[in-house]
């Protein structure tokens, strides 16, 4: 096969209608084809959660949390809002849950939903003046706000100041924790995927594609951006509230860069724009960082190294690569 006469051709797998709609599926083969990539990870995760020791169960929980943060980041970015501050939403949710639990002694099944809704609302209101910023300027604001809140809490010493709020009420047991977070993660992923391919979700994508044309289509893009912001921040706020109860603690560490950077790194590795990619990325990165703990202080160095290698080796992301391999066949064809 020399270069002169052959080229690689790509063809979609022979499937009659590749569609998310249930009506389009007609044969067993096709059902299997569509379900296979969805069912496998769900069952795999469920089984892992059942059989692994407590330590690794905790790792799964934290992976789920980062996965949700990453999915939310990807959702925001596919609505044209590049966020560098998932920590903001996360931290706000965490503090609301912490305050409600500490000062009002509310149980977790009240604080978490409350923190989710009001955390989302509060974050949206906070960012409302800047939704008209584009690209990196918006990113900058989201990067700054959590830093400001952090320093603000430090300076004013409210809500426990530097020490934070400790001794919050935990979940009854690890199983409740696992069930809540794993369900929440899958629901978030599939609901958002469905939402973004609906007629309504289409508008969010169109804003990213071209905001001026969307305006010229008679759409109030700022209202839609605010909605996207609300959805995205609700997800993060939920994670924050969950984490608060899981660790029985909230404090300024919830605003640290880790919660902003890791979701982005997960998205870059997993593949931006698919919502599932970032999830995959998070499940690569979080366990990896646990494995690297053996190296002690060198951990972060290796971690950074892996990050660089992953990004450079597979710039499009793991998920895009896998899905291409799954959905397309490649073959050499002869040019006459």
């Amino acid at each position, binding site marked *: 096969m020399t270069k002169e006469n052959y080229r690689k051709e*790509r063809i979609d797998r022979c499937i009659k209608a590749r569609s998310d709609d249930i009506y389009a599926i007609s044969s067993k083969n096709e059902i299997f084809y569509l379900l296979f990539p969805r069912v496998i990870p769900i069952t795999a995760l469920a089984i892992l959660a059942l059989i692994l020791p407590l330590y690794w169960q905790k790792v799964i929980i934290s992976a789920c949390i980062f996965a949700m943060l990453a999915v939310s980041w990807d959702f925001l970015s596919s609505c044209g809002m590049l966020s560098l501050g998932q920590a903001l939403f996360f931290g706000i949710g965490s503090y609301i849950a912490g305050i409600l639990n500490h000062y009002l002694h509310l149980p977790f099944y009240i604080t978490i939903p409350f923190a989710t809704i009001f955390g989302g609302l509060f974050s949206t209101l906070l960012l409302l003046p800047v939704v008209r910023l584009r690209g990196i300027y918006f990113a900058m604001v989201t990067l700054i706000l959590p830093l400001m809140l952090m320093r603000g809490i430090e300076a004013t010493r409210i809500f426990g100041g530097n020490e934070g709020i400790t001794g919050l009420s935990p979940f009854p047991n690890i199983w409740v924790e696992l069930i809540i977070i794993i369900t929440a993660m899958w629901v978030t992923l599939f609901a958002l995927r469905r939402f973004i391919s609906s007629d309504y979700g289409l508008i969010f994508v169109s804003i990213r594609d071209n905001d001026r044309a969307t305006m010229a289509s008679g759409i109030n893009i700022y209202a839609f951006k605010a909605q996207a912001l609300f959805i995205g921040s609700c997800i993060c706020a939920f994670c924050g509230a969950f984490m608060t109860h899981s660790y029985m603690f909230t404090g300024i560490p919830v605003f640290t860069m880790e919660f902003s950077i890791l979701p982005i790194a997960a998205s870059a590795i997993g593949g931006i724009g698919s919502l599932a990619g970032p999830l995959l990325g998070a499940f690569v990165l979080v366990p990896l960082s646990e494995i690297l703990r053996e190296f002690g202080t060198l951990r972060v160095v290796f971690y950074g190294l892996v990050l660089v290698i992953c990004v450079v080796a597979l710039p499009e992301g793991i998920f895009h690569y896998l899905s291409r391999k799954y959905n397309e066949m490649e073959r050499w064809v002869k040019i006459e």
Partner: protein
Amino acid sequence: MLKVENLMVFYENALAINELSIHIEEGEIVGIIGSNSAGKTTLVNTLSGLLLDTQLKEKRKGGERITIFGKITFLGKDITDLWPDERVKMGIVLSRERHPVFVESDVEENLKIAAYITTKREMKENIGFVYKVFPSLVPLRKRKAGFLSGGEQQMLAIGMSLMAKPRLLLLDEPLLGLSPSIQVKLIESIVQIRKDANVTILICEQFARPVLPIIDRGYVLENGMLTLEGTGKELYNNPEIKAAYFGV
């Protein structure tokens, strides 16, 4: 001077240019006539090497796979795999469509940036030459290119390619979106450039009417295939061309 043999370009599975063979002789003005998406832009991008850059970028992010077959020779040298900057050094300079200029620099600076591959003395001479060809740029010397009108930007864009001392000048849709009076002016300048600077010129255009009278030979492209070729006059009098491109 330039010879293209059996050029084929695929964008993924779509064929953009099919079995194209053309040649350009020293000193000619050659026209490539074709409607939208006939493959004109792909052709000049292949000739100037820009397509290689696009190809690499698409490959990196896992996008469309661009495949190029065929052979391009320039002055007897195979340049098929040569990068754009090396081709410029050999003398193939492209002026891209939709008058791309450096909008935040003023006119003079645009020309100076374009003089990247020449020496300082040549730069001064060339700037003088550009101002001679396009006298209407002289009063605008200190204006930012972004504030120029479409016609002036197009003149500047051609002027910039002249700064790189081309032997073969590729013009991609120079008349696009220009008003009739400016089109006429521009066509006159192109003829003058050929005469004064001794360059070979390849024009890709869909407005056949103003272009056909000045070209020595022309090719008609349709869907990436060569459908007609002949001298400018022959094409001008061809009834099919008249029907398709003149709109009688």
